[in-house]
């Protein structure tokens, strides 16, 4: 089945859409951050599966192993995960401050409070 | 209060007479001066006089007619 051949891509796409849906449709700021995380996770998955070679082993030189997975995407994603964690942390910190100032974390209510008189 | 000499009716009447006299002189002067025009019309006798009088009348009346259409109170844009 050609369409299902690259099932990893399908997983990525589905995760990405779930993430976007949360971003677009949810007014709760924390849910938005969760959506953002799912979206990012889908991209991490994309990179990781790109580097995986079927039947390949971890890239450690050892006797009798000739097929290795590509380690570079995995290394890159380590960096990206760090960035993602930092973003989440910052986002949550902002939500805390927003809650302190507005006493709500619903986007609509915040927008209503901000509307120019 | 005595009116300024220039605006007394007597002076004004005198000014009209002087002016008509000057007008006559300018036209008559043409008798002594040969005019070389580029066109025929400008060689006619007293061309400046009749042409000036005529065109001015046309312009004033033309302005009057146009004015009837485009004049507005001067507070129009305020």
């Amino acid at each position, binding site marked *: 089945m050609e369409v299902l051949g690259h099932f990893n891509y399908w997983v990525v796409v589905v995760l990405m859409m779930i993430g976007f849906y949360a971003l677009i449709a949810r007014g709760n700021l924390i849910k938005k951050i969760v959506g953002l995380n799912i979206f990012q996770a889908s991209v991490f998955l994309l990179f990781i599966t790109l580097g995986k070679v079927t039947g390949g082993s971890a890239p450690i030189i050892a006797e009798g192993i000739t097929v290795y997975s590509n380690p570079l995407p995995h290394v890159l994603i380590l960096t990206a995960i760090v960035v993602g964690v930092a973003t989440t942390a910052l986002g949550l910190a902002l939500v805390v401050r927003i809650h302190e100032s507005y006493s709500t974390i619903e986007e609509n209510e915040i927008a209503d409070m901000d509307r120019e008189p | 209060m005595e009116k300024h000499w220039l605006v007394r009716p007597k002076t004004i009447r005198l000014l009209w007479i002087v002016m008509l006299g000057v007008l006559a002189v300018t036209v008559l002067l043409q008798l002594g001066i040969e005019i070389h025009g580029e066109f025929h019309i400008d060689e006619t006798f007293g061309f400046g006089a009749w042409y000036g009088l005529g065109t001015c009348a046309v312009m004033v009346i033309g*302005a009057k007619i146009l004015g009837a259409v485009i004049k507005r109170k001067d507070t129009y844009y305020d």
Partner: protein
Amino acid sequence: MISGLPPGLILIAGAVAIPFVGPTIRKGLVLALPVLTLALIWGTGIDAGTVWSAPFMGYAVSPVRYAPTGMLFATVFSIMAFGGALFALRSARPSEMAAAFLYAGSAIGVVFAGDLITLFVFWEIMAIGSTMVVWNGSSDAARRAGLRYALIHFFGGIVLMIGLIGHIEATGSITFDVMQADAWPRWLILAGFLINAGAWPLSSWIPDAYPEASPAGMVFLSAFTTKTAVFVLLVGFPGTQALIYVGLFMIFYGIIYALLENDMRRILAYSIVNQVGFMVVGIGIGTEMALNGAAAHAFAHIIYKGLLLMSAGSVLYMTGKRKCSDLGGLFQSMPITATCGIIGALAISAFPLTSGFISKSMINQSAADQHMMVVWLLLTAASAGVFLHAGIKFPWFVFFQKDSGLRPPDPPWNMRAAMIFFAALCLLIGVFPQPLYALLPAPVAFVPYTGAHVVGQLQLLLFSGLAFFLLLPLMKRTLTVSLDVDWLYRRAAPAVIAWIARDLRELSDGVLGGTRAQVGSIIDSMAHYHGPAGLLARTLPTGRTVFWVLVILAAFLVFNFS
């Protein structure tokens, strides 16, 4: 080294310095700088040609080019700056004086420009300087008229800039020289020039904005913008036939509107259009004599129009009134102002022995020499019309007519001195035309004072005078303004926009099912779409923003794969 300095820079530097010096130094400065400019212009000499070039924006620009026409205009501009400064010495605020000097300096910059880029740069600075002069009229009307003025000149600048860049792109040359109006870049350049010349239909900015300036401000305004436009037309488009028709239209437009006008300074503003029309016709005819005539007429015009506006400015300054219907009988208490005003009026009407006679005759004569009978007849009729609308109407209604009961004295000494200086110049040039003729770009073989000429002109003018007094009942002053093209952007366009905006609003209200109250004004309707909480500026929730991202991404992908 000093000879390489762009002469306009002296006045511009003065403009920068004026706000920062004390009143005594300022007075000395504003009188000395124009003289210094004149000395620099003539100290360097015509043979200097293009003095230097410098790299700018990847082109070699030549900001200083000495050429006869430019020097003639620069000379009269310096004289005007001096006379205007003398007139404004006590009444003008520092900001107004600075604006006027920026304006005058950039006008001189234009006439010395050796290339189109320098020309454009000074052209735009001139627009800024003149707008600031209008704003210094310091009334609410001045502010609004100044904004309209600025927008029109900004628009003119846009037209000119598109033309210039198109021209430079097509020819690869930035030299400012004779051009043929044969392709759209040149047409746009010509249009840009004509907007500044006050050509119809974009002429109403002159009577709209100029009379809102201060008494001294309008003296400056009358001199530079339209005359630099005449200068660039003279250098760039001599002999362009379309200009004859444009000019003739300007002439009669000016006369008719001036005849209908009640405000004395608006009368004079319309007569600027009329006089520039004569110059434009001369440029359109394009023979050596016609071009000489246009240049000489510009020279003479700046001085007598300055004089007329000084006279009108003095009346306004002393009485605070500018409507003919409020004025009259002032000759009794303002004899110097009245006399000088009459001399200016005679000069603009080209009475023999005044400067207007020896310059305008050249244009009329060149039309005759080219056997353009219709043009000649129209010009002759127009000469009579000038006497009618400016030569008699202005002094008659302001200084004579009925007695308004006003008895203001003549203005302060500096204003009187400026008027007497200019009145003397009008007469001197009229009696001794040779020095002016020597300045003209081409050698002059024209003899103004022939018997036939003088008699013909006297007949024409005196009989128009007769017509004026005979038709006086038809010219009763009314408290009116006349609609002009500016009606389109002051009344019609806003109304149309308001109408469309209202319709759009109804539409959107209908679609949204809203019951928002109808607010008629344009601003409100526009703000509906563009305001802080408007559709296009609203702080969108994050979700909708992300949605847009996806739309653009999808568009990109569709585009890419199709």
